[in-house]
C-alpha cells in the first residue's frame, strides 16, 4: 500500500541565516493515520509543513499519494498558522468558501457548492457565520471558518498548522475530536502541528518530534517518552 505522505531527506535553508531550519527529515505516513508534529518554538514545525506543501524552497523529496505534492493539491486541505486577514476586505464567509472551491474537482462541490459550504460550516460548528463578513470574525471564529475551508472540498489529506490557535479550551477539544472523527469516517489522513502534548497523546496515531532534525518518530508511546519530552522542553 502506498503511503499517504513520503518524505525523504527534506531540508530547508533560508538564504539570509544560511543555517538549516529543517535538516534531513525523512518519514513515511501511512494512509488513515493522524500524525502530530511537536517541538519547541523555532524548531521548524511550520517550515516542515510548508516544505511538504511546496510553499518554501527545499531540498529532498516529498510525495503525496505517490505523486508530487503540486499534483495532489485538490486532495489536500490546509490550514496555515497565524493567518492574517485584511480587515477592509469586503467578503462574506460564504463567498470566501465559495472562491476556495475555484479549482475543486470533487463531484459533490461541483454539483452543489452551497450545500458543501453549509455542510463544512456545520461540521466545525460555525453554521451561523455563513453570511458574516470575514473581517468581523473573532480569532476563534476565523479559525473555525479556515478549518471549514480546509474540509469543504472533501480532501483526503488534512494539513493543519496549530488548528487550536485562538480557540477556547472547549473549542480546542472539539476541533481535535472532529479531525479524529473525519479521519476514521472518511478514511482521511491528517498532519497536525500542535503545542499541546495532552491532545497529542489523546489523538495522535503517530508523533514526529522535531528540533530542526527529527528527535523521534513513531507511535505516541515510544516517540513521546518522558526522556524525549525532557529533551525538547527542558524547562517544563
Amino acid at each position, binding site marked *: 500500500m502506498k503511503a499517504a505522505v513520503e518524505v525523504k531527506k527534506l531540508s530547508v535553508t533560508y538564504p539570509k541565516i544560511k543555517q538549516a531550519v529543517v535538516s534531513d527529515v525523512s518519514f513515511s505516513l501511512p494512509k488513515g493515520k493522524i500524525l502530530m508534529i511537536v517541538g519547541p518554538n523555532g524548531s521548524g514545525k511550520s517550515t516542515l509543513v510548508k516544505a511538504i506543501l511546496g*510553499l518554501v524552497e527545499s531540498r529532498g523529496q516529498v510525495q503525496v499519494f505517490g505523486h508530487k505534492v503540486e499534483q495532489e493539491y485538490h486532495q489536500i486541505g490546509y490550514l*496555515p498558522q497565524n493567518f492574517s486577514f485584511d480587515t477592509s476586505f*469586503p467578503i*462574506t464567509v460564504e463567498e470566501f468558501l465559495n*472562491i476556495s472551491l*475555484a*479549482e475543486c474537482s470533487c463531484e459533490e462541490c461541483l454539483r452543489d457548492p452551497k450545500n458543501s459550504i453549509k455542510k463544512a460550516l456545520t461540521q466545525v460548528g460555525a453554521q451561523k457565520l455563513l453570511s458574516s463578513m470575514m473581517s468581523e470574525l473573532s480569532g476563534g471564529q476565523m479559525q473555525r471558518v479556515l478549518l471549514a475551508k480546509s474540509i469543504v472540498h472533501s480532501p483526503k489529506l488534512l494539513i493543519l498548522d496549530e488548528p487550536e490557535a485562538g480557540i477556547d479550551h472547549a473549542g480546542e477539544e472539539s476541533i481535535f475530536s472532529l479531525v479524529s472523527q473525519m479521519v476514521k469516517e472518511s478514511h482521511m489522513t491528517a498532519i497536525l502541528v500542535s503545542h499541546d502534548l495532552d491532545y497529542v497523546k489523546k489523538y495522535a496515531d503517530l508523533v514526529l518530534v522535531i528540533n530542526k532534525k527529527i528527535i523521534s518518530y513513531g507511535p505516541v508511546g515510544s516517540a513521546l517518552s518522558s526522556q524525549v519530552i525532557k529533551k525538547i522542553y527542558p524547562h517544563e
Partner: protein
Amino acid sequence: MALVTSFMGIHVVLRRSSFYPDAIAHASLTGVALGLLLAVNPLITTVIFAVFIALALPLFQKSSKLPLDNLLGSLLPSAMALGVLLLALMPGYQPELISFLFGNILTIGLTELYWLVALTLVVLYFLFVFRKQLILISINKDLAKTSGVKVERLEIVFSVLLAMTVVAALQIVGIILVNALLVMPATIARTKARSLKTMYVATPIISLLTVFFGLLISANYNLPSGPAIAVLAGVALLLSVVLAKVGATN
C-alpha cells in the same frame, strides 16, 4: 474603458497594490520617449515598455527580497526621469507628450479605439473566468496555491493585462491621473461594500458615472477631461468616506 479599469481596479485595490499601476504609468513615460525618439508609434513602445516593467518588477522583487512599496517608490522617479532625459534629447515641442501626461479622450483615433475595444474584451474575459482564483490570491497566496490555483502563471497574465490597461487608461486621463480610473471607483465601493458581490456591482457603476459626469463637466466648462474625471472621483471618495463614518456613528 471605464468598465475594464473598474473591474481591474477591484483586484488592484484588494491586492493592496494601488501604487503598482501608478508606477507602471510613470515608467511608461520612457516608452513614450523611446517611441518619439525612434520615430515609432509611441503607443507600441509604451505597451512594450510597460509590459516589460510589469514582468520585471516581481522577478526583481523576488531576487532582491525588498518590499514592493520600496521598489515601486524607487522605480517611479527613476523610470520617469529616464523618460524625461530621453525627451530632452529631442528638440522642440512634443504634443504626444502632453497627451500622455494629461490624457485627452478627444485625441483617440479609430485604430486606438479598436485596440481599446479588443483589450477591454480580453481583460473582461480573463477577469470573469479567473475571478475566484484572483480573489483567493489577493487573500493569501499560500492558501491559493494549496487550493490548486496556478498562482505564478495567473500573476504573470494579470501583470501583463494590467500594464496594457494602464497604457490604455493613459490615453484618456494621462500618466498623472491613471489611478483615478483604476483605483478610485473600487476604493469608493470598498468604503460601503459588505460583500464581494456588492463590490462587483458598485465599482463599475461608480466608474461609469464618474466618467460620464466628468466628461459632461469637461465639455460644458471647456476643461481637460482627465482632471475633471479625477477631481469628481476624489469628491465622490471624500463623500463616501464621510457618509460611511456618519453611518457608523448612527
